[in-house]
């Protein structure tokens, strides 16, 4: 990624570092911490909460997803190709008289054009969502941390990745401490 520092941080044992994980006690604390991390200019980081927190994406400064554009483009392409396919098959390649209609009756092609538009839109929405989220993945470094388990119960986490261009072991830790983290630890890859 363009924001990557290119540096690799390792622990004293020599293991590469994934990032720094900070725990927060309440949604409000996490929300304000997210604002501080955002304002500090980090880009490769994420928050983890047991339930959705409205407005957190703004506090994190997340841009709007590109998925709708992707879906629109693929859906229109799918619909267009669907129409051309039928036109070519029925009108050009193997003309058959059906119901006494002209070979290239556009009306007859609409349902399949529509369905192919929907189908490609649905597939793009699902697969695109997974791809943009980096899913599926069978493991994540955070799962090694016992403390992270409470992220599905009553604790709130920020994890800033070592790959971030602004990442610095000391300053990033200081930022999270300043933001009110109740616990901070390094996460190995």
């Amino acid at each position: 990624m363009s924001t990557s520092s290119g540096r690799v941080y390792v622990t004293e044992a020599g293991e590469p570092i994934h990032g720094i994980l900070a725990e927060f006690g309440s949604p409000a604390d996490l929300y304000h911490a997210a604002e501080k991390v955002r304002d500090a200019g980090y880009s490769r980081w994420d928050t983890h909460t047991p339930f959705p927190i409205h407005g957190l994406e703004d506090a994190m400064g997340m841009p709007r997803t590109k998925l709708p554009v992707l879906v629109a483009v693929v859906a229109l392409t799918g619909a267009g190709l669907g129409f051309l396919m039928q036109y070519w098959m029925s009108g050009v390649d193997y003309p058959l008289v059906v119901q006494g209609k002209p070979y290239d009756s556009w009306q007859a092609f609409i349902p399949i054009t529509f369905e192919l538009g929907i189908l490609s839109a649905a597939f793009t929405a699902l697969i695109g969502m997974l791809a943009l989220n980096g899913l599926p993945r069978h493991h994540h470094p955070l799962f090694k941390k016992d403390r992270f388990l409470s992220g599905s119960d009553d604790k709130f986490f920020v994890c800033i990745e070592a790959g971030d261009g602004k990442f610095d072991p000391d300053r990033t830790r200081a930022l999270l401490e300043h933001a009110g983290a109740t616990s901070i630890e390094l996460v190995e890859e």
Partner: protein
Amino acid sequence: MTTAAASRTRLATDNISLSYGAGRSTGLGLMGLGLLAGLAVLGMGFSGAMGLTLKHAVAVYLIGAMGVLAMSLGGLFYVMAFHLTNAGWSATIRRQAENLASFLPFAWLLMLPVLGVEIATHGTLYLWLNPDYYTDHALQNKAAFFYAPLSIVDHDTHEPVKGAVFPAFFVIRAVCYGLIWTYLSRRLCRLSREQDVKANASLAAKARFTSAWGMLAFALSTAFASFDWLMSVDFKFFSTMWPVWYFAGSAFSGMSLLVLVFARLKSMGKLEGVVTPEHFHDKGKLIFSFTVFWAYISFSQYFLIWYSNIPEETAFFHYRSFVGSAWRGLGIFLMIGHFIAPFLIGLFRPVKKSPLALGLLAVWCLFVHFADIYFMVRPMVEAGSNHPVAILSHLWVDVVAIVGLFAVLVGYLIVKVPASSLVPVNDPYMDEALEHRNYV
């Protein structure tokens, strides 16, 4: 909660009310002028002034009346849909939907001149009322729908009766629609206004209960009104998709008019922080969804008729679409104007969130809505003829009648909107609506 208390300050009287009587004379003037225009066109048709036929006059008056009826039916639909779904976001926009729905008794009254003229003249536009057509087998088979318990065929001789028969069942249904629409719109508006004063949540529960059976009554009355008053213009034609077509236009145009009401209120500096870009976003989504719905059902109707090729059905579309037909251009315009253009424009989020942009789109939507009803009715005036000059003659009369009847509704809203608080202040969902955001 403190946020709820803070949001409540947005409900300051100044922000959610217009001074009572504001614009009243303008509104009443507009109503009077509009009604005068509509009736003048009918009068011209009767007297044959400037060569206008009565059939033409009744048709264009019908287009205007059914157009505004569709909008107020759309208002009623949204009020009931919001109640039934326990919708939170819509609490701040429901009052204006109620105002739109409260036009229903008047919209019904606007239809009376058409029904009166048609019955009195034994069918100029509704040819099934004309005794000359009693010999038609298609009409004889449908006669009970219009004339029961009377009959247009003599029981003993099986010959068509001489002289016009009173369309009893048709008139009974027309009265039923009036009663249903008046009752539903008045009751839902009354409960909502009562809540403004009493702050009693059980009133919302009553409104919800009314909406439950009301939605069914609405669906049946709207469907049969569209059969009776629009589809019967071509009595040989039949389509079970027809009411859905009319309803799609109704929900589409009703929401478009609501958007314009709110855009106007916002431009007056009202509803600050009460109706937000988030609410406009949702209204835009509804317009968008109903333009897609309209395209879906109107194509479905066309498609099945085109495929099955049954003469009585196909005639409707053939006359409007064969190469060289004077109406072909209007049909293609509707495909683009009523579907493709609003669809592509409505895809963009900034358009839906901006009162100005969505307002402009809504103006366009109202225009194509009238064009849609025009496409249903107007070709029947010169049915069989395909002479563009004859068809386009008196086009200004069409404009006067349609704009006139629309002005009646606009004038009514100008009078009605300031008459109560702009939002149902004590609605149980008010806090939720004030905090409404689309988290996507």
